[in-house]
Every structure is written in C-alpha cells, then in structure tokens.
C-alpha cells in the first residue's frame, strides 16, 4: 500500500528515476499552449438565454404564450364566425342557437347538416345572444393582451424617464421627485379609475366606427389612469438601479474621459438596466391584464359588443348554474396568460440577473 507520508517517502535519489532522456528537451510554445482555448464568445444575452432554456417552467410558459398568440392571430381565418355576428343558418337568424354547450349544434343547424350542409363546430358553444363563444373569447383575449401590452409600454416610458432623471441627478431634485412618487402611490387606484371613467364619459365622445369608439371611453380612461398612476413602481425600480450603477467605476471613468451626462445615461446606465426593465415589464403585463379584467368584471371595462375576458366572465355570472363553461373558458385563459407571464418573468430574472459578479 503506497504511503504518502512525506517524511517516510523513500529518499528518492533523483538519479534513480527511470526517465527517457529525450523527454528533457525543452517544450515548444505550441505544445505548451494546446490547452489555451478561449471559450466561445458569449454576450450577456446569449449566456442568459442558455440559462433560460434550462428552466422547464419558463420554457413551458414561452410555449403556452406562443400558442395563445398564434391562435388569436389565425383563428379568425379558420373559424367562419364573427364575434358580434349572431348565428345564422343559410341566411336566417338562428334563435335556437342560444347558450349551446361546446361542440353541440342548434336545431336549425342540425337540420342543415342533415340536409347536406356543413357547419363548423362551435368549439366553446354560444352565448345568450347566439354568438359563437370561441370567437368571442379569442377577441376578448386580443383586447386583454393589447391592453396589457400597451398599458405596460406607457408605464415603461413614463417610469423610465422619470426614474432616470431622478436617479442620475440626485440631491434635492431626487428628493422632491420621490416625494411626488410617494403621494401618487398613496392614491387609491380603483377609485381613481372609476372617477376618471365617469368624467371621461362626459368629456370624450368619439366618432363612431373608430378604434377609440369601439374600445369605449372606459378603456381610454383606463389607459389614462395607467399613464397617470401606475408608472410609479417602475420609476422607483429604475431609480434604484441607477443609484447602484452610478457607483460603478466605469461611470466615473466615462466622466474622467469627458463624456457628457446624456451620453453616460444613454450608453452606460440604461443598457445596464435593460435586463431589469425587461423583466419588470414582463411582470407588469399580467398585472395590467388583471386590472383590466377586474374593471370589466365590475362593468367599467370595454363597452359592448367588444368583448374582453373580464366582461365575458361578468356576463357568464348570470347563467353560472346552468352554463358553467361560459365562466370557465375566459377565466382559464386569464389564468394561463397571467401565470405564463409571471413564470416567464421569474425565469428571466433568474437567468439575466446581473447580481452575479464574475
């Protein structure tokens, strides 16, 4: 048994080692540097994507979101029903198509099929106005996603500008700006939305047929409220990031080189906030969708006949006993979207978090 006790080691005389004499020739540089391979050039982004791919929940969320988006884009091309269109069979209004269960046909439709016609199945059934429910859910999802997305963009832009100025300038300006943020934070948002929608209903009247008219004054007031109130969270976050980044030596180095403040903010500070911005926007979208759904549920959302997931859920309340599926479908879609975006946002935060110092 070989013992490694250094004191007990056989007093190896250097001459006793059996070595091939040739091996004592000096080694060339190529031989020495065979192992010197610099690893694949990886930008921060690629590194983060690699980590993200390893996260099963995040990948599942991406797949679900992509599926939902594909469906809402391509469904109207496949399904022949419209979202406001009352079910018609051969040009005749079908009053018997009220509140059909999924994949069932109304009497008139069954007649028509028996006579050799084809009818696309009602995947989610129909609602109490004889409209195809699947298309209503699809359009409702479109509305909710758009609202969520655009509201988040508004929040992002306002919050980013406000937060960067406050964080970069610092001192008294920062103090005042942050106190304003505190005041806005303390306002009750739901109350504000309700008040503003009432006010805007009076003030705004849109030309019928425009996008704004079809969205309704409620929706517009929602956007305005988001723009006025919800940016504060993002502003605080960005200000915090900037305060941290400002302490780094590379900002000082840029100042020493003679770069102006605008250049420093644009080229050094904001790009380093990027991952935080993306992640918090990803987490902001479900919050906006949720708020919109809530408002629609209480009747302050988009005006009829434009559906939104929340208003669909609201209408489904009445027939809950007899037609539970009408609540299940929109609620399920809300849950899927919100959950996926949250999981994706979390996954991105884990993958891109720059707190890991090399």
């Amino acid at each position: 048994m070989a013992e490694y006790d250094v004191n007990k080691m056989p007093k190896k005389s250097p001459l006793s080692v059996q070595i091939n004499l040739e091996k004592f020739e000096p080694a060339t540089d190529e031989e020495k540097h065979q192992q010197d391979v610099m690893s694949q050039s990886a930008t921060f982004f690629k590194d983060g994507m690699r980590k993200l791919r390893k996260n099963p929940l995040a990948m599942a969320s991406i797949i679900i979101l992509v599926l939902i988006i594909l469906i809402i884009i391509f469904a109207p091309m496949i399904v022949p029903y419209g979202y406001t269109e009352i079910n018609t069979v051969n040009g005749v209004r079908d009053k018997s198509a009220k509140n059909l269960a999924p994949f069932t046909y109304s009497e008139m439709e069954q007649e028509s099929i028996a006579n050799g016609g084809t009818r696309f199945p009602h995947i989610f059934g129909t609602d109490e106005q004889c409209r195809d429910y699947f298309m209503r859910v699809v359009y409702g999802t479109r509305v909710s996603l758009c609202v969520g997305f655009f509201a988040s963009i508004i929040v992002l832009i306002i919050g980013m500008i406000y937060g960067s100025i406050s964080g970069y300038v610092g001192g008294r300006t920062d103090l005042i700006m942050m106190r304003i943020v505190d005041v806005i934070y303390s306002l009750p948002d739901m109350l504000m939305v309700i008040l503003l929608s009432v006010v805007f209903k009076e003030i705004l009247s849109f030309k019928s047929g425009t996008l704004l008219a079809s969205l309704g004054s409620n929706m517009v007031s929602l956007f305005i409220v988001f723009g006025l109130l919800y940016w504060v969270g993002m502003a605080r976050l960005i200000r915090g990031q900037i305060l941290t980044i400002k302490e780094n030596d590379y900002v000082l180095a840029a100042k020493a080189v003679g770069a102006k403040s605008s250049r420093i903010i644009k080229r050094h500070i904001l790009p380093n906030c990027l991952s935080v911005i993306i992640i918090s926007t990803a987490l902001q979208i479900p919050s906006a969708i949720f708020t919109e759904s809530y408002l629609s549920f209480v009747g302050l959302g988009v005006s009829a006949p434009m559906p939104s997931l929340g208003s669909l859920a609201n209408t489904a309340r009445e027939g809950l006993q007899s037609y539970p599926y009408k609540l299940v479908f929109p609620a399920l879609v809300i849950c899927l979207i919100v959950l996926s975006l949250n999981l994706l946002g979390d996954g991105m935060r884990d993958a891109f978090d720059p707190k890991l110092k090399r």
Partner: protein
Amino acid sequence: MSENGYEHLLSVKDLHTSFFTDNGEVQAVNGVSFNLDAGKVLGIVGESGSGKSVTAYSVMQILADTGKITQGEVLYKGDNITKWGERQMRSFRGKCCSIIFQDPMTSLNPVFTVGNQIMEAILLHTEKRGQAARDRALEMLQLVGINEPDKRLKQYPYELSGGMRQRVMIAMALACEPDVLIADEPTTALDVTIQAQILELMQDLQKKMGMAIVMVTHDLGVIAEMCDEIIVMYGGRICERGTADEIFYNPKHEYTKGLLRSIPDIKNMKERLIPISGTPINMLNMPKGCAFCPRCDSAMKICLEAVPEEIRINENHLASCWCNVRDARKNGEGAAEK
C-alpha cells in the same frame, strides 16, 4: 484507531477536493499531503485559484454544498476525521481546530454583541456557564489586547474598527484553546500598521498557548515573517515545501522561482521585475502533466506528459519539478565523467 501514540498532530494525506458546478467538476485540490506538529507555524502560500483556502476548509470540512472531498484522508491525532459524521465534526470544530477568516467586516454577526459571539463558542464546547463563561470571555479579550474589555463585551461589531474586529475573531477562535488554528488570509483586508499588530499578537499567543498555526496567504512578506515551514501551491498541487530559508534562498520549483523574481528585490529595488507569463490555470480542465507547464519558461517535453514526482532536495526541502531530475542527472553524468 489509535488514541495516543500518533505521529503528527494533523496529517493530511493525498487530499483531493472538487466542486461539482453547472459548468463541470472544478478540481480545486489535487493530491495535497502535509503534516503539522504542535507549536509549529505552517504557511501555505499560493495565488488565487491555487487551492490553498479550499485545503484549509477541507480540513475543517466547511466546504460549500457543491464541494466534496473526493479522495484522501485527514488525520487528527491519528483519527481519520474525513470519516466522521456531522456530530463528531461539530465537537471538533472550535474545540480542537479553529479558523479565522479574511474579512472581519463580514465574519462577525452584526446583530449579536461581541460578548455573545465569544461566549457562543465557550458555551458549546466547555462546561462553563453564566458568570464563568463571561469571565472566560473577558479573559480572552484581555489576552488579545483589547482595552476596556468589559465595555467591549456589550458592544456590537459595527462599533469596532477593523483591527479590533480581527482581534475579536482571534478571541473567538482561541476561546476553547484549540490545538490547531487555521488563519485564512487573516490580515489581507487590514492596513499595514494594523496587520503588524495582528501578526505580532498571533506570534505572542502562539508562544503562550502553544497551538499549531496554519497560515494561508498569498503575501510572501507575511509568510517570511511568520512561518517555520512553507508549502507553495499552484493548481491544487504542492509545488515545493521546506523551511523559510530554503524556499526563499534556494527555490527549486520553477513557479517559486518565478514568484520570487516578480516581486521587487529589497537589495535592488529598481531592478526590472521578471513576471511569470500567461494567466492562472483554469481548474475545470486540469492538464495531464504539470499544472504550471504552460507558463513555465523552462518547460520540457516531460512536463507536458507527467505530473512531477516529489523529490527530496535536502533534509528540509522537497520539490515537485522535473528540472531537479534533469539537473541531478547532469550532475551525476558530470561526476561520472571525471
């Protein structure tokens, strides 16, 4: 195993430690063996990534979750502590072997008083309780040279300066009179004048209490001042070991020679430094041969193929470098020719 009649106080035999990370297995320690006797100061010197801290942590078994001792044994008074369970290790740490860390700012718990933290060790490992424990803590503070010790007992770490915090750390480590004290870069974060105070304190305490010290550092100056015996590490392996005089005045490993050439020579401060070319080794991909080979100016073909064996240079000095084998052969042939 033997209870008494052991050869060395601490004996590390062929230690291999690896960290199993997402990127692969990082072989931090690759075959380290050394002995430590009572009352001696052993210095382990190496740069970042050489494996010196990991060796110390492996002895105490306080590695991170991803770290594991993959091979070898650590014998304390003849007993193999790598085989011990967590309970036995807990009675080992603090009582038989203590450690002080580099950064005194973060090594003390900010929400507990100084007295509380010193007494924690006393309460865990001795039978002293209450006032007796407090008295012992006071005694320790006086021993490490802190003035107004009863006032300090009630203070929190943020109220103390860096030098004082390091003294408190030393007091904590020595409260139960361990046989071995491991000091992991104890003065790197301190100012030069405070560093001198702490090193002098450690030498004093060692004379008074007779414990063995393992000094892990990258500072060659500290090593020259404090240590009887020195181990030079690179790439998780021991390059060379010997007394301070042997290592500094008669280096026999290319890495040690390179290190000594790259610091200013006190006899000739303006002479141009001769750096070691290249960058420290990447521990994910340990080469087949000598770890230092890619950076070595005198590398030979055999260095690429085989890890050098440890050769005895003289009774105080061993080195693992093929250059010694080559030189000995040359001398041997020269002598044979005459």
